[in-house]
């Protein structure tokens, strides 16, 4: 008797489940694992499902190192996400592989995208179509250690504004022991960190050049300006002696340990630096050059819709993508992950601009550029090697620059569609 009741109950349970499934559309969302990002997305999905009871969203995550391979393998296997997250630098590859569909213009009109988002969103455009929209963007800024500034006789309320002031402050803050070993670096020097972006998009421009032309398909830094920019960078170690590549293993580790007075890093580092207890730190815009020229490097993860999604799933995906790129979602993202809103109106609020931490990053966004990498890791490697040849092998700045330009051009050419 009891068994029969249980069985009836089970059947009833299954049928209600089945009925719900028939009414609700389920779409799948993919991103890589990063605790705060997953939490933020869980919250966004909850809000979205409350507003759209007929749609359920399933979030699937993979470790960052596997993420691209998983997306591509899923496509080959004929199944995958409806909405997926991708780094802006992967777009060429994802479009060429037929992973994404152009954003439907009825839901995402171009004039709206272009007027409401920061201009760096253009990195998601190929031909006449946009392939994704970011929720949040990241930019660079100069972090400084207030305690070390005070110890060195620098004003912690008045961080360096120009490159000259930056070098002067770094020289003052650098400490060495009796044997000449670095104890406190004036600034971190870490090409493998964010310095390669700083050199490429900021220093090269500040010394009067430009890193690339032709939509970032032609390397253009092998000029006098590029040479000055590289010399400025390597001189920080060899002439000014304000830091040393490899000091404390990584730049961010040196700063965290309170052994570097300054470091250039991105919004994504805020989470790690917020747990610092030994000292107070501040953030300021990247230093300008003597003429006041500023630049910055911005990057972002965007969300796009899979090429194979159609019918009611496509309608649901459009709604979901619209929600996760809405000002409300950006606010949730800023509070949970600490990344800057991708819409001008959501970012440039008075409260955000006045925020001592977010303010400098947001100002940087106004004039930031995004490099259209074809193979970020390989291109970064050419910049790391360029600096190392000067620092470790004593190659001349001019030769090393020329060698790097040739190597990077070869990487870009090899990736060009045939």
């Amino acid at each position, binding site marked *: 008797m009891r068994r029969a009741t249980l069985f009836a109950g089970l059947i009833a349970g299954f049928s209600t489940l089945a009925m719900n499934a028939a009414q609700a559309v389920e779409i799948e969302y993919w991103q890589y694992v990063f605790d705060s990002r997953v939490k933020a997305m869980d919250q966004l999905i909850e809000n979205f499902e409350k507003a759209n009871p007929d749609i359920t969203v399933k979030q699937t995550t993979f470790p960052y*190192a596997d993420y*691209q*391979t998983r997306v*591509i*393998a899923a*496509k*080959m296997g004929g199944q995958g996400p409806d909405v997926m997250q991708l780094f802006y630098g992967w777009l060429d*590859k994802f479009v*060429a*592989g*037929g*992973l994404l569909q152009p954003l439907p213009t009825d839901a995402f009109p171009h004039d709206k995208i272009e007027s409401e988002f920061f201009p760096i969103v253009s990195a998601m455009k190929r031909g006449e179509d946009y392939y994704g929209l970011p929720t949040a963007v990241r930019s660079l800024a100069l972090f400084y250690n207030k305690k070390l500034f005070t110890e060195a006789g620098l004003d912690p309320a008045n961080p360096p504004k120009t490159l000259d002031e930056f070098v002067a402050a770094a020289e003052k803050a650098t400490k060495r*022991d009796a*044997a000449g*070993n*670095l*104890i406190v670096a004036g600034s971190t020097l*870490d*090409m*493998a*960190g964010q310095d390669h972006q700083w050199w490429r998009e900021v220093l090269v421009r500040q010394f009067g050049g430009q890193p690339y032309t032709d939509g970032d398909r032609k390397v253009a830094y092998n000029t006098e300006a590029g040479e000055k920019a590289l010399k400025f960078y390597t001189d920080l170690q060899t002439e000014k002696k304000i830091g*040393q*590549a*490899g*000091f*404390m*293993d*990584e730049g961010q580790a040196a700063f965290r340990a309170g052994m570097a007075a300054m470091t250039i890093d991105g919004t994504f580092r805020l989470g790690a630096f917020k747990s610092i207890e030994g000292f107070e730190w501040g953030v300021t815009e990247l230093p300008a050059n003597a003429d006041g020229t500023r630049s910055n490097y911005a990057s972002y993860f965007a969300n796009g819709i899979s090429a194979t999604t159609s019918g009611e799933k496509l309608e649901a995906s459009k709604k979901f993508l619209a929600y996760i790129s809405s000002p409300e979602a950006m606010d949730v993202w800023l509070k949970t992950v600490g990344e800057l809103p991708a819409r001008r109106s959501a970012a440039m609020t008075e409260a955000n601009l006045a925020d001592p931490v977010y303010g400098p990053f947001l100002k940087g966004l106004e004039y930031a550029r995004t490099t259209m990498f074809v*193979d970020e*890791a*390989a291109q970064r*490697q050419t910049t*790391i*090697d360029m600096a*190392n*040849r000067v620092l*470790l*092998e004593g190659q001349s700045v001019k030769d090393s620059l020329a060698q790097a330009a040739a190597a990077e051009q070869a990487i870009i050419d090899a990736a060009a569609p045939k």
Partner: protein
Amino acid sequence: MSVTADQQGAALSRPGATFWERRSMRTKRLVWVWSFLALPILFYSVIRFYPTIEAFWLSLTNWDLLKPPQFIGLANYEKLFADPQFWKVFKNTFAYLLVGTPISLLLSFVIAYHLDRVRFMHGLIRGLYFLPYLTTAAAMAWVWRWFYQPAPIGVINNALGTLGIPQQPFIRSVDQALPSIMLTAIWAGLGFQIIIFMAGLRSIPNTFYEAARIDGLGEWAILRKITLPLLKPTTVFLVVFSSIGFLRIFDQVYNMTTNDPGGPLGSTKPLVLMIYQTAFSSYAMGYAAAQTVVLFTILLFVSLLQLWILREKK
């Protein structure tokens, strides 16, 4: 005896017996054996042999994961052999092999030879030597990475500093990085080699030594005439095993140089790391497959060469 023969005969001739029942005991047993053996063979074919053959085919294509592979002949190999980076990596790989294998074998033999005679805390000492082998390579590599840092955090440089010896750049140097990493790899594999050598030493009968001593042979002569020749199978095994290990070195290099994998300036990069980067960072699967085929050929050649050199001479 005759009963069983009769029974067998009856079974064979019984009308209506199935095909299986009509087979002899021997055939049945063979079928059973082979069906059990088929499982691992099938398993290996699917997860080992098939991908290996597939890799040979892929090395002749331009597969990039996204588009279906297209046959491009030997273009990947031409590109590879014309790439200076490849030759640097090739040189590094052989440096790991040709320096790492002899040093690690010599060291482990000397330690095993002496440890074999130690009675005092023998188990503890042996355990201490074996411990690194049990530790995760990645964790060890990170510990060593910090040992090698400049002062004030690098243990080694701090020690050098107190002795008045100038600071060494270790893994931040084009010349010192490869030996620094090789040292950690040797240290990590030492425990295993010591255990195998000790097992080999123990398997040499004591009577040989006793006879030699009665005949008045010195320690050195005993080592040369008895121990080393009788240890040959162990040595051959370890040479091949250790060579393959050094040719496939990856964990130590990758974890000690994650910021600039295989760096600085590619001075520590082994072939396996190059393959990894080509495949899973640049997604040039065809090109990576060509590199894999080259590595396979080197491994095969080196192993066969060693087996031939160290063969039993009759």
